[in-house]
């Protein structure tokens, strides 16, 4: 049994909700409540960063066994702080800077060449001919590539096919050992273009033509994309048209990016609402906090406050956001 929230934490919860509302008030317009929360936040985060950096990096370093190597960072850090003492010696601060920048530069050279050039070239250079996965011969690992086939289902299929080879997809996906929910999953993934029909067959060497087309498109997207970011030629004539195709594909890609990003943003707002409702704490605590009440009270305070504040500076321009 966990004891009820103490008054200190109840107060905290209410403060948290008030600050949430104060920051959301920025949507109405820049106002004292928002500014207060903003500066409070900036201040707290600075205070937070400084301590956490000292504690988790510098202090623990001192606590734990030191090696002669640790002399180097010590000196570098000292050089960085010199500039507080004397403007004349401030140039010493360039040493730590130079070292850190060089460290990162060197790392990105070797890091990127492997992951962003090597592996990406490798992935881009796949065979354009894509065979359908043969349910009667493919190993389990390959079977679970088929849409809707989980490793568990793959294992079952292997057993089933040794008992009796599959004659058709329907036959394969409706074998008795599959549970109802598994069948539902599989049925859900049926489809001629990207679904089961496209990816799997019961004979070997069947070509997945949509896969081929997609592969070609993938290659085209890559090449035209590279062309668009090729700066040594004026984009005219054929090249111009090609690079235009490139930027079109690019834009479709950005569209996807937009979609995902928007999802992310909305998720954040949802979480704030859930938080006020007390979704992330135990029902007992939620009942104690009364988040909705706190939210309404805070909003009333803020609205009243903003109203008074606007009356005060009547004549001065309306809140910035309204423009």
């Amino acid at each position: 049994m966990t004891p009820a929230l103490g008054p200190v934490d109840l107060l905290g919860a209410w403060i948290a909700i008030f600050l949430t509302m104060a920051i959301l008030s920025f949507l109405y317009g820049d106002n004292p409540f928002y500014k207060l929360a903003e500066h409070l936040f900036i201040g707290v985060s600075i205070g937070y960063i400084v301590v956490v950096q000292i504690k988790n990096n510098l202090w623990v370093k001192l606590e734990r066994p030191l090696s002669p190597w640790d002399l180097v960072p010590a000196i570098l850090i000292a050089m960085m702080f010199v500039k507080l003492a004397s403007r004349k010696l401030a140039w010493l601060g360039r040493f730590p800077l130079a070292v850190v920048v060089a460290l990162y530069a060197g790392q990105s050279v070797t890091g990127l060449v492997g992951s962003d050039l090597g592996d990406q070239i490798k992935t881009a250079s796949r065979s354009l001919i894509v065979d359908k996965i043969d349910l009667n011969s493919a190993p389990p690992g390959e079977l679970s590539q088929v849409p809707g086939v989980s490793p568990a289902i793959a294992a079952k299929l292997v057993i089933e096919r040794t008992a009796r080879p599959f004659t058709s997809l329907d036959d394969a996906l409706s074998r008795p050992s599959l549970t109802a929910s598994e069948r539902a999953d599989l049925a859900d993934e049926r489809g001629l273009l990207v679904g089961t029909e496209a990816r799997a067959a019961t004979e070997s060497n069947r070509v997945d033509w949509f896969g081929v087309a997609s592969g070609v498109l993938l290659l085209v997207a890559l090449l035209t994309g590279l062309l668009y970011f090729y700066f040594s030629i004026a984009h005219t004539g054929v090249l111009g048209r090609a690079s235009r195709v490139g930027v079109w594909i690019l834009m479709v890609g950005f569209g996807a990016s937009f979609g995902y990003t928007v999802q992310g943003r909305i998720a954040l707002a949802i979480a704030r609402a859930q938080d006020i409702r007390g979704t992330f704490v135990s029902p007992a605590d939620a009942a104690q906090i009364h988040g909705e009440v706190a939210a309404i009270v805070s909003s009333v305070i803020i609205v009243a406050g903003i109203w008074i504040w606007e009356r005060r500076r009547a004549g001065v321009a309306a809140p910035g956001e309204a423009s």
Partner: protein
Amino acid sequence: MKNTAPVLLGMVVGCYMVVEYFIPHYAVRDVSAHVLQWGGLVAAAAYVMGGINLVQVTWPKIRRREQDWGYKVVLLASAAIMMLVGLPWRALIGVRAPGYAWKLAPSPELARRHEARVLVEAPDDVIVAIGTATARDNVVAPGEVAIKASRRPIGYDAFETKLVLAPGDVAIVAADPQMQWGASGRVRTWIYDYVFAPCNATMFALLAFFVASAAFRAFRARNIEAALLLGSAIIVLLAQAPIGRWLTTSLPHLSDWILDILSNGSRRAIIMGAAVGAIATGLRVILGIERSHLGGD
């Protein structure tokens, strides 16, 4: 000197980082393990620098009573408080033991029933677990019992011990776990949970609303590019919400296909191009050609 020496030092370190990648020798690996820590340590110190810098920038504004100086006071004050409560005060004020456990004279009455008893003296908000029991007065079976006393909020000591109880033993557990200060102390965690976290999250949540208004007021199919962008955006938006699959199962498939083929294809072109640019710039930095980050000579 003032400009060349840092660059030279940088060149040495940077070149080492590149060469190191191609040398599998364990001795080199061990050296790298040390070198790699430098970056982190210096960066950490730079944050401290930033804190000091903030005071340097803000204080004059307050002295000169510049516009919004009041908020600047709030800013500095909250920063100062957050730093102060981050100090390990208990090093000064001392640490009190979180609790004690001792035995009293055994009671024959309990012994007859082959039981033992553990009494708890603790404030109401302290959770004391005697084995699995959490009452203030527990009759337990003899033998070893684990005793754990803690407070609910993060940032308090915990009292843990074991008692071996013979039949008839009566033990007392007096626990009052003390509040911790410092980076993971009670007050700091409180401020983090109830000020830092909600502000941080809400700042981000504002974006949901800005997205909506941007979509309404700024996002226009002015040309074919924008139209394409919008089209795929709407498809992905629909597919990402459960409603997409509810409308038609091919929507998620289509959106996945856009991601796998069109997005990945063009994205890969960008990744490679960017990688080349980054590598080249990196090379320029470690070869000392690029010194803009050190300021003009």
